[in-house]
């Protein structure tokens, strides 16, 4: 097991990180329009 990486979906990771950034950006846009 030494040196083996746990399995995960690279696509899911990319989507999750992008979603966090997009949500934060949308929240910023919403705060500027109120």
């Amino acid at each position, binding site marked *: 097991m*030494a040196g083996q990486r746990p399995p995960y979906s690279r696509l899911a*990771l990319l989507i999750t990180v992008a979603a*966090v*950034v997009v949500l934060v950006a949308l*929240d910023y846009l919403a705060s500027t329009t109120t």
Partner: protein
Amino acid sequence: MSTLAEAINGETIRDQPSRPRIDRFVVGVGAIGALVLGGLIWQVGSPRLVWLYMIGGGLGVALYHAAFGFTAGWRNFIVHRRSRGLRAQLLLLSAASVLFIPVIAGGYANGAIAPVGGYIVLGSFLFGLGMQLGGGCGSGTLFTVGAGNRRMLITLIAFIGGSVLGTLHLPWWLDGPGLGPVDLAASLDPLGGVLLQVSVLLALAWVLSAVERDRHGHVEKLSLRPEGRWWQTLITGGWPLLWGVIALTGLGLLTLLISGAPWGVTFAFAIWGAKALDALGIDMSQFTYWSWPYPAQALEQSVLVNVTSVMALGLLFGAMIAAGLAGRFNAGSQNRLGPRNISAAVIGGLCMGYGARLAFGCNIGAFFSGIASGSLHGWIWFAFGFLGSIVGVALRPRFGMGN
């Protein structure tokens, strides 16, 4: 040292690789995401907020690499009478008290001083119970989510839900009887406050050691010496707990000096949940809590200018990068998610979220920052949070969770 899995949720992953391979994909994605978000904070906020964001990142790295889990530290003592994790926390509180109280007394920052009442007792008890079922505390939930743990994502979502519910009920709870804020450092003068706190913390550490020695015949030491080369350990993890204590103390002090208030976590969850409901068309300003000046301002403004949110986001990315450097991203997701396990995550998250609002913070905002500020509510949080954890530990087997 406790393994990462023990620090997170006591599950049975103990196969810490002897020579971790850096996962460049995770490190790269985490670094790019962190840089983009940092750029947004720079544009919208201020250099001060960027510093706090980076401090949050450093806290994420330190928590992950040192496997500094408050939850597992308490459980290890409750179940196995092993006190190393708990003693590391007491050392952290002692060091933070020595550094924080003079800064606060000198007027350089505000302390985490909160009123004392039945809501602190109930809130901390619920939090302590919830953190054993949820599998992590305020900081623990964040850093394990950042490290790719699927189950902890469920805990986090429930945590956010419980936080919002807590904000709706907090005004009612505050109408109950209470003592108001009790600042030990102000009551005893700063030096007296520091001496009292450090004496009590050291006495507690001595008692914990005595209990461990009585059960096991020896006491596990807190060591500064890593198992491998120090520079390799610094990057790829497996830090001795004392490295975690030093890093958390230093970064906690920087937070206090730069933000003007001690480190907090769970207010960010309440804001995120309230913003989500607001986006769905629910007018949160109709609720008393969200009409109070600070929450109302936080709800209206971007999370990019909110200190707690910025630090929590930094912590998430810091833990992700640290998990990539350790080659163990997603390692906490190895165990199958079943209905009982998911139920425990939801109940634990809800209890923690609700409890943190009632208790004016979580293990960071109330326990760490409260005690380090010399606030009595931090000590009450400790006592009743620990009682809640004893109940939570007893409940874990009913949800198919090991101890």
